[in-house]
């Protein structure tokens, strides 16, 4: 019950933060000298054409009127306005692209986290051995790599040179007509027992997934290792050892939980990191998700879309942090704060 109350309180606190975020973004972009109308109209547009676009999108009204109208639209109708670039409803664009981004980022986060925990624990148990040094080298390299460079190198190696994995896209072109049930290709193809589609979706997921997973893997392995080393020195572990509990049980059942306390605090940060990385990674792999859409709308100064994707980023970031806190409570129920 207390967990539910905490989650509700946190979600409630999210509202002023997101409102503040929209407000800051709105007035920040208003203060900046760029003119989205000129970009949208193109270099050859006449003054009358620009004025027409300005009127069409409501840019001719005073800023506070625009602001109130905009916030009202979001709160009352979930209406984020129309994109200057795709000329469609932004909310529609985002919902359509949501499954692609979620599929990619959740897969890489989960794989990175699982592998990170295993590597970190193994490294901690074999502290200062060759394997430990090797794993520590890999993890510090993992957090130091530019993910977009890794993406390019993966494409060069596995698509261009070896030709074993697809270069870009989310699924083979002839399978694109796959019926959308959830929009998640992995789930859809399993539901329809279409294993060819499943294989194709998986193979397209591998390279961008690796590029996104490196930082979560490195971060989690480092924190898991540090936590595990700290926990293994505690007296309750020594007691269990003395009682003859097997090493495997001590590590994976009793020590691991406490070792992951520090790791949980990183989950929100990693959500944010993966989300920000999808901007460039989706662009490189032509992944039809929100990241590529966000980057395009930023580069085209499509501010209404920018506000919407910023809100999306804010929500994901906060939910990541919340998940981390829930994980912390599941590990250690004393951590519940009102």
């Amino acid at each position, binding site marked *: 019950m207390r967990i539910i109350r905490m989650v509700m309180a946190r979600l409630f606190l999210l509202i002023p933060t997101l409102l*503040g975020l929209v407000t800051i973004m709105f007035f920040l972009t208003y203060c*900046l000298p760029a003119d989205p109308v000129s970009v949208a109209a193109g270099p050859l547009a006449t003054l009358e054409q620009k004025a027409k676009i300005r009127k069409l999108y409501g840019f001719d009204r005073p800023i506070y009127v625009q602001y109130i109208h905009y916030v009202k639209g979001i709160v009352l109708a979930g209406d984020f306005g129309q994109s200057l670039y795709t000329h469609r409803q932004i909310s529609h664009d985002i919902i359509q692209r949501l499954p692609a981004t979620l599929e990619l980022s959740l897969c890489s986060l989960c794989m990175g986290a699982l592998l990170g925990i295993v590597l970190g624990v193994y490294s901690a148990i074999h502290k200062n051995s060759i394997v430990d040094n090797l794993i*520590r080298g890999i993890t510090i390299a993992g957090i130091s790599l530019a993910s977009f460079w890794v993406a390019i190198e993966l494409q060069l190696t596995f698509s261009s040179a070896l030709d074993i994995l697809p270069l870009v896209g989310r699924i083979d072109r002839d399978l694109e007509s796959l019926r959308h049930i959830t929009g998640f290709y992995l789930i859809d193809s399993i539901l329809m027992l279409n294993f060819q589609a499943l294989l194709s979706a998986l193979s397209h997921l591998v390279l961008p997934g690796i590029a996104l997973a490196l930082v979560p893997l490195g971060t989690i392995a480092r924190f898991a290792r540090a936590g595990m080393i700290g926990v293994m020195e505690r007296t309750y572990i020594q007691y269990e050892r003395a009682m003859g509990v097997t090493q495997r049980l001590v590590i994976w059942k009793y020590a691991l939980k406490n070792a992951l306390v520090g790791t949980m605090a990183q989950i929100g940060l990693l959500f944010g990191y993966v989300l920000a990385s999808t901007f460039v990674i989706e662009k490189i792999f032509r992944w039809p998700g929100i990241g590529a859409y966000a980057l395009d709308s930023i580069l085209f100064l499509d501010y209404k879309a920018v506000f919407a994707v910023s809100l999306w980023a804010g929500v994901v970031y906060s939910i990541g942090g919340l998940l981390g806190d829930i994980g912390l409570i599941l590990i250690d129920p004393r951590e519940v704060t009102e």
Partner: protein
Amino acid sequence: MTTYKLLIRKFFQDRNGVIALIILSILFVAAIIPSSLAPHPDDFGATINPRERLEAPSPKHLCGTDHMGRDIFSRLIGGARVSLMLCGIATGSALLIGTLVGLIAGYYEGWIGLLLMRISDIFVSLPQIVMALVIVAALGAGIKNAILALAVTYWPFWSRVVYADVISIKKSPFIEAAKALGTGTTRIMFLHILPNIVPNIIIRSTIGMGGTILTAAVLSYVGLGAQPPISDWGLDLSSSRAYLPTAWWYALFPGLAIFLAVMAFNMAGDTLRDVLDPKLRRSRKET
């Protein structure tokens, strides 16, 4: 003095720390005197050597040449200056503003402090790169605007770090003692509280430099950072895209340069943490 000697000795006892220090020294030397180190210093700018276009690595051109026939190895050395300058200024100014804000907000805790911290919270509710991209896109691409955007989006991180530290330190007995002796507010803030935060700031700014190099590389890669013909790692990576997969060296080496620089800062940060902050011994436990 002996404390410093002890700290320095501890730093050099760590193998990763020494490796990091070597890489960073090379980087700084390259940033200070790029022209004397680079085999082809002319290639930092817009030179064109059509006959040596897109050559694979050879003894003459260690990392090959780019689409304008420029020596990539030389451009990597030139890029060290751009990277260190850009990230140094951005991190430095963010750190100064953030530390000041954090000190004031943490010490006074009144409505000013509350307001400052709420603003920081809103900035931090978004990954840094998102807002940085928006700001540079609106201001126009270029190094100056990239620095500005990175600094503007990075100070809230520092103000939060410093704020948390100040809150925990200002309740210590030695601050109360200083107050009881009639020490002025400014003196307490800068001579009694600040020195206790400095180790944490040094550790985090070292790691922060690495992170900022990565963020700046993303800005350059999407075309919002350094503009041609400047030597910049992210920019070179971005221009290499048109010549892949044939010119594999064109993308490989700038990426490696970014990787080495970021890793050196990260490793140095880890070692500094072990040396300066015994409470936070994350990366290693003494055996």
